[in-house]
């Protein structure tokens, strides 16, 4: 029983990361119909912003060494700038483009970011010590839970509540929701397209930065391809949860985290290295029965 609860907390913690990443992706998809394959690389960028540019294997912290109340906003700001630049340089001209074009464009953008990081920081993964004091365990009843996992779950809850309040209560949030539902009609009512889109990219950037910080604290490593599996799992989360729905992205994220941790815990030893393959297989099976995802939205259905 204890083991199961321990695994449950693991699942919530991992699921939080996927949910955050999924939210970042879902936001842009909802408003722009953009599948941003570069989101993982925004995360990587946020992570690498923490250290001094160098080829060393042992990373020297730069912004990563600042107190958290400075580090958080600065990293967030950097990633937001990267996201807004991406919109300005690449996606703005592609507003009318087809979905495959947007996909390839974001894939190319991600590739450029990845390889630039590779050029500047080298190919070897780096070790980094971020908030390692949080690895200490806290006792909850009979459970021993690393503080970091609680922080991850807590931070995710705070961010989700914040986003929810923003979308539900502020005028900008209402505008974004309206734009996500019917972009053209929103413009006919005076809502500035580029502003709403910029807002979406900015929020997506903030989410990416937070995901980066939590991810780096948990794994203690940086590599130029670190964003790829995150991006992939986040996309799987949105597909499973139901594309176009923010709630779906969160549900999907936790679902994927849950399946992943449970497989890790309960798969026979020699199959454990294939865990990711199993996760994806489970996902594909789910999609066989519910192709539109677990939380259906009417967003994508084509009316005949």
């Amino acid at each position: 029983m204890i083991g199961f609860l321990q695994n449950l907390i693991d699942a919530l913690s991992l699921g939080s990361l996927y949910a955050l990443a999924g939210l970042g992706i879902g936001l842009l998809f909802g408003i722009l119909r953009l599948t941003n394959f570069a989101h993982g690389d925004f995360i990587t960028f946020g992570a690498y912003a923490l250290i001094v540019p160098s080829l060393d294997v042992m990373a020297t912290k730069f912004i990563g060494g600042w107190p958290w109340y400075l580090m958080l906003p600065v990293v967030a700001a950097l990633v937001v700038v990267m996201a807004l630049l991406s919109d300005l340089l690449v996606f703005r001209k592609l507003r009318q483009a087809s979905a495959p074009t947007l996909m390839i464009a974001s894939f190319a953008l991600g590739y450029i970011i990845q390889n630039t990081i590779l050029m500047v920081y080298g190919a070897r993964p780096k070790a980094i010590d971020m908030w390692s004091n949080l690895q200490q365990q806290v006792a909850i009843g009979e459970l021993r839970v690393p503080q970091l996992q609680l922080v991850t779950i807590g931070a995710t809850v705070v961010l989700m509540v914040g986003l929810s309040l923003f979308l539900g209560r502020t005028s900008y949030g209402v505008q974004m929701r309206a734009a996500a539902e019917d972009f053209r009609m929103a413009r006919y009512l005076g809502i500035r397209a580029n502003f709403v889109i910029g807002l979406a990219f900015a929020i997506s950037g903030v989410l990416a930065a937070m995901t980066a910080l939590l991810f780096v604290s948990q794994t203690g490593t940086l590599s130029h391809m670190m964003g790829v599996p995150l991006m992939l799992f986040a996309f799987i989360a949105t597909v499973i949860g139901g594309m176009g729905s923010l709630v779906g992205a969160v549900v999907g994220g936790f679902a994927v985290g849950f399946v992943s941790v449970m497989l890790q815990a309960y798969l026979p030893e020699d199959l454990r290295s294939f865990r990711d393959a199993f996760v994806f297989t489970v996902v594909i099976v789910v999609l066989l029965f519910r192709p539109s995802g677990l939380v259906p939205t009417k967003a994508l259905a084509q009316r005949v």
Partner: protein
Amino acid sequence: MLEIDNIHVNYGRLQALRGVSITVAEGEVVCLVGPNGAGKSTTLAAIAGGVTPHAGSIKLQGRSLVGLPPEAITRLGVSLVPEGRHVFATLTVAENLRIGGFQRRDRGGAAADFERMLGHFPRLRERLQQPAGQLSGGEQQMLVIGRALMTRPRLVMVDEPSLGLAPMIVDQVYEILLSLRRSDGLTLLINEQSSKRVLQFADRIYVLRGGRIQLHDRASNLQDGKAIMEAYFGFGEQPAPATGSAALGGVAE
């Protein structure tokens, strides 16, 4: 107030408008009539900035609208209620209404207008916190008109207000439009399929077919409906309908 001069609009290779010219004077009610595919919606979309004409000009009180994004045109005082209502179904009625007012500088004015709209459309007040997707067709039509009015327009364009609604509801919608025109000093440009309604409400009528204006006159001159029918269907003498212009009621496709 609004001058459209010889605009041409293409969708790819399809010529939707081939030289359409329309004027609307301040305070008027002008109606565009015509069969499906004639270009009525395209005309309104061109004015509102949804499509761009590749030739011709559109001027609002002397200021050119061509090439401006839709949001800018709305801020100049032109509001479009597109065909099919387009409520934001997952937003509440209150949020739908408020959206129109977000771009306005005068917050107080927007809040006052919000109350005014609820006064015009009391049924909406009962449903303020409901998702707009749950409203009936007639209520949605009221909502989108109120929402468009929240942008404080001088020119309101409505595309097929009667589509999919029971005739009684349509009557209500038109009554409200006309009373708003009086109380708020609006100018109205309306697309209609039913020439009967058009003859009742319009000051001037344009008949479109095949992307061109086939007929343009004051409504008072067209009351027998014959000229409209000819222009609408595009052929000559028609046997006189048994009960006069009433038989034209609801001339849809």
